[in-house]
């Protein structure tokens, strides 16, 4: 956990006071909606179909139990008792009242949480691997650098009015769980030939209307130069990024139009001007941030304790353990993923009661720490393996132990037309129906790893372009239709999916997905060939033939 200092606390509290005054002036008519809109957006407040939506940042996906209780409190006191975890390590409340928002913000500030820069054309919440600091084989904890970037980008005057929003993601593992290749800047921590730690810097990734996979702009930037190099990128973007057309304003379009070589050259020239400036990260600065992260004092524990041996006789426990429990860097410990994808439920939602219980369980079994992943699930990052059986029972009791992590019913979905004013079609009911179709865990296990991503419009908040199966809702003559892509992926081998055929109606989506999965089971070379690998090997055509032959 990172401990905020006095500066952080002052900044957050001042922001609450400022927004309280702005809301007061808006409600009195002193500020018009036109004047107020940018102010509310800078505090993560959108206007959606039914109400205001309030987006709160969870920097690099790390929460303390106290903070999770704070999120539960806001859900209970100011909303309708639940929140929605998003694909960018935020939580959204869907029914918040503007008049009560300053109080909600003040309550969150008490636990060191805020909503600054969760909207608007600025640098957004810095996201990272939800297993940061505990993943085996990790170079080092990427949250140190995430936190440095958070401090650097928060209220940065030069980058508060960029051409468009700007998103960072960081990973320090060989397997990318942070989807860095679909971010404006993706950072991969690694060591060079000399053993020095630094970053591969990728730029220009993004989804939405015009999807691009990020390209490497520099294979190695030493840690000390991270901020100056990032500033050089932001400066080039700020200068040349288009402000005349919102659809062409993201950095991915600039990189595409200039070409990666020309863009890299512009950045390099800018960087040479500022490289050896106050932006250079002295080791003492990095150490200061590192020292503010507290780490558990782990016990020396056996890998296979008696409790685990005994519980192995319970097939339900074993299914969950195989699916939701992952290796930890410390022997005797495990990372546990909590599925927020119950069969028939909306993906990524958690009730206040669930959040409170998870906070209690984190205190008891995970050194008071919880993580939020971009797949819209939670994780307990430091669980002693001896505690797994008792933890499983407690998680199962509150409905977050569905053994479907990374399987076909672990669906990523945006809020869609049920909530969102931008959406053209519904996402959540499609996800719910699919989870019911694939509710049989034996079948899901047989299918293996398969990521379905659903977006209710081209803005792609559900990351449909990089789903193994991607579903995009569109509207045609007042009716919902869905375009389906296959073969996308968001990891270190990120790719955009390919369209499989004509869009299908709302009522046909689940049938088509079932047909695609059946085609995969028939086409795969062997049981352990993953869906996405079968598509890579065979291409879209055999799937198209099987799925559309009878339609």
């Amino acid at each position, binding site marked *: 956990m990172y401990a905020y200092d006095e500066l952080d606390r002052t900044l957050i509290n001042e922001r609450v006071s400022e927004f309280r005054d702005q809301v007061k002036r808006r409600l009195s*008519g002193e500020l018009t909606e036109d004047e107020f809109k940018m102010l509310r957006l800078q505090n993560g407040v959108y206007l959606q179909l*039914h109400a205001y939506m309030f987006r709160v940042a969870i920097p690099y996906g790390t929460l303390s139990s106290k903070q999770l209780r704070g999120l539960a409190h806001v859900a209970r006191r100011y909303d309708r008792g639940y929140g929605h975890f998003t694909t960018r390590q935020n939580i959204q409340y869907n029914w918040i009242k*503007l008049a009560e928002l300053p109080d909600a913000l003040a309550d969150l500030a008490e636990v060191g949480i805020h909503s600054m820069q969760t909207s608007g054309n600025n640098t957004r919440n810095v996201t990272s691997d939800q297993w940061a600091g505990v993943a085996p084989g990790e170079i080092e904890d990427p949250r140190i650098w995430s936190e440095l970037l958070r401090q650097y980008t928060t209220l940065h005057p030069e980058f508060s009015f960029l051409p468009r929003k700007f998103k960072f993601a960081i990973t320090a593992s060989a397997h990318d769980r942070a989807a860095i290749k679909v971010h404006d800047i993706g950072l991969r921590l690694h060591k060079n030939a000399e053993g020095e730690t630094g970053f591969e810097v990728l730029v220009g990734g993004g989804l939405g209307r015009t999807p691009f996979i990020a390209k490497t702009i520099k294979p190695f930037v030493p840690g000390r130069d991270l901020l100056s190099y990032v500033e050089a990128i932001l400066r080039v973007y700020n200068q040349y990024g288009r402000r005349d057309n919102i659809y062409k304003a993201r950095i991915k379009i600039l990189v595409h139009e200039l070409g990666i070589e020309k863009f890299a050259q512009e950045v390099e020239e800018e960087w040479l001007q500022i490289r050896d400036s106050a932006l250079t990260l002295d080791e003492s600065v990095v150490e200061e941030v590192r020292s503010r992260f507290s780490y558990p004092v782990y016990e020396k524990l056996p890998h296979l304790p008696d409790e685990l041996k005994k519980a192995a006789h319970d097939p339900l426990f074993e299914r969950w353990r195989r699916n939701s429990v992952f290796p930890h860097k410390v022997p005797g410990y495990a990372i546990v993923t909590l599925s927020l994808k119950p069969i028939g439920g909306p993906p990524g939602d958690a009730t206040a009661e669930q959040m409170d219980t998870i906070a209690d369980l984190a205190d008891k079994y995970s050194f008071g720490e919880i993580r939020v992943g971009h797949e819209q699930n939670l994780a307990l990052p430091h669980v002693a393996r001896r505690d797994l059986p008792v933890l499983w029972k407690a998680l199962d009791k509150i409905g977050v132990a569905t053994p479907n992590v990374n399987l076909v019913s672990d669906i990523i979905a945006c809020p869609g037309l049920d909530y969102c004013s931008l959406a053209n079609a519904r996402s959540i009911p499609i996800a719910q129906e699919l989870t019911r179709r694939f509710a049989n865990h034996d079948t899901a296990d047989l299918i293996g790893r398969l990521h379905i991503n659903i977006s209710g419009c081209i803005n792609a908040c559900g990351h449909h372009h990089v789903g193994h199966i991607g579903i995009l809702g569109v509207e045609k003559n*007042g009716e*919902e239709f869905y375009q389906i892509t296959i073969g996308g992926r968001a990891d270190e081998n990120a790719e955009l999916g390919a369209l499989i055929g004509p869009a299908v109606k709302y009522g046909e989506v689940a049938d088509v997905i079932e047909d695609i999965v059946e085609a995969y089971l028939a086409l795969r070379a062997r049981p352990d060939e993953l869906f996405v690998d079968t598509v890579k090997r065979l291409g879209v055509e055999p799937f198209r033939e099987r799925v559309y032959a009878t339609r």
Partner: protein
Amino acid sequence: MVTANRTWDGVVIYRTAAHGWSAELAGAAIVRTSDEARALLAEAVADDVGAVGAYIAPVEIKNSGAIKPGNLREHIRSEGLTIGPSVPA
């Protein structure tokens, strides 16, 4: 009809014939020409303190005279979520 969200709490509201707002679609003023719609919208937009994001939306008038939302978006705004009872109330 013209619809918006109430400023202080975001609740869905409809412009009424009595120059006010109703939280019920049944209370909405129904207009049939584009000039009438534009006039109703101008009146709604002028109430910047009371409402936010006003726009013209279609309705369907049933034979019974009942007013129904004219598209899925308005149906969801008027009737609520379509995602079933699994979402906490």
